[in-house]
């Protein structure tokens, strides 16, 4: 699980071109779409959907699922694990 979280952080940094941010700067429970966390926006949400398909082969077809899954690194990792079954 820890490896998955680390991978997700690296993938997010690359996909969203987060300059000056390292995986260590992203706390597992930091809110991704809040200014106290990464301050991501709606375009980033679309990029995260692409990321899950590109790196993990997961298609997010239900918008409500994505809303919960993309809250934090913890929720993303749990979502990936659940979908991969």
């Amino acid at each position, binding site marked *: 699980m820890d490896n998955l979280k680390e991978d997700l952080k690296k993938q997010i940094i690359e996909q969203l071109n987060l300059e000056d941010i390292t995986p260590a700067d992203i706390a597992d429970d930091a809110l991704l779409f809040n200014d106290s966390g990464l301050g991501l926006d709606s375009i980033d949400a*679309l990029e995260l959907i*692409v990321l899950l*398909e590109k790196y993990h082969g997961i298609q997010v077809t239900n918008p409500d699922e994505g809303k919960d899954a993309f809250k934090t690194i913890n929720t993303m990792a749990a979502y990936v694990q659940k979908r991969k079954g």
Partner: protein
Amino acid sequence: MAYISAASTISHQPTFKNAGFSALLEVLGESSALINPEYKEYIDAGLLRRMSKILRMSVACAKECIQQAEIEQPGAIIVGTGLGCLLDTEKFLNNSITIEGLLPPTSFIQSTHNTMGGQISLSIGNHGYNMTHTQNTLSFEHALQDAMLLLAEGEENILVGAADEHIEFLSEVAHRLHVYQEKQLTSGASFFVVSNEKTSGSLAKISDAQSWGLVSNVEDATAKFLKDNNVDLKALDLILYAGNLSEFAEIDTEKCIDYTDFSGIYPTASSFALHYAVDSIAQNKPIRNVLIYNALIKNNLGLMLVQSLEA
């Protein structure tokens, strides 16, 4: 008539925030590179990470102009671009032929020609007229004419400019661009604040700007342009040109400078020439009348008459 109250350029020359740069220009060499300012001083880090070269240049120049002109908001934002956001266009097209499944949206969203105007508007919270003109090497002249029409209708403080960016692919197809000379292909952005009233901050005035597609006789067109503005060819102190001046029999070649020697070649390099003219007038008082002659592509002709405030 348009009074210029601010000008900002990012180019391969030390143009940005550097009044008097026109005396420091050097002919571009193979090793010359774009001189980038510290973009974080102008653009929020959250937006900057998504922006390609052309967007960074455009937004930084636009914000610098607004600071220089000491205005809160321009009445309109008008941009000229010959080839638009090439980096994002290339990225999006490459994604679409190499990625199976969902495509990343950012490069698609930012690949359109009007992204510069949109990003400038978003970054300063402007809700006014927002227009992008793309007419190959005459894109900037068209944008400027649009701005001058708005000024004539009473609009004040218009932000007008142009930008183009170089990608490696352009060098591969350079022979198909039909530019007059083979010189270094470059990137550049120049923005200006123009107003219909002369103020204490005015730097120079654009008395006229015109453009012709499929021009048949450049000498006749230029002669008529000057005559319409009551300026004799001999009264010009400086002619900044791109293209070929050999058709002009009575021209004083000592007054002529090929601005693409300094800007390199990009479709809207005439906007660099406008800043060059403004800086020359502001720094060198004997210069009163400057003609910018843009024949970068043989069939296209753009002319701008830039004059000192006293002329």
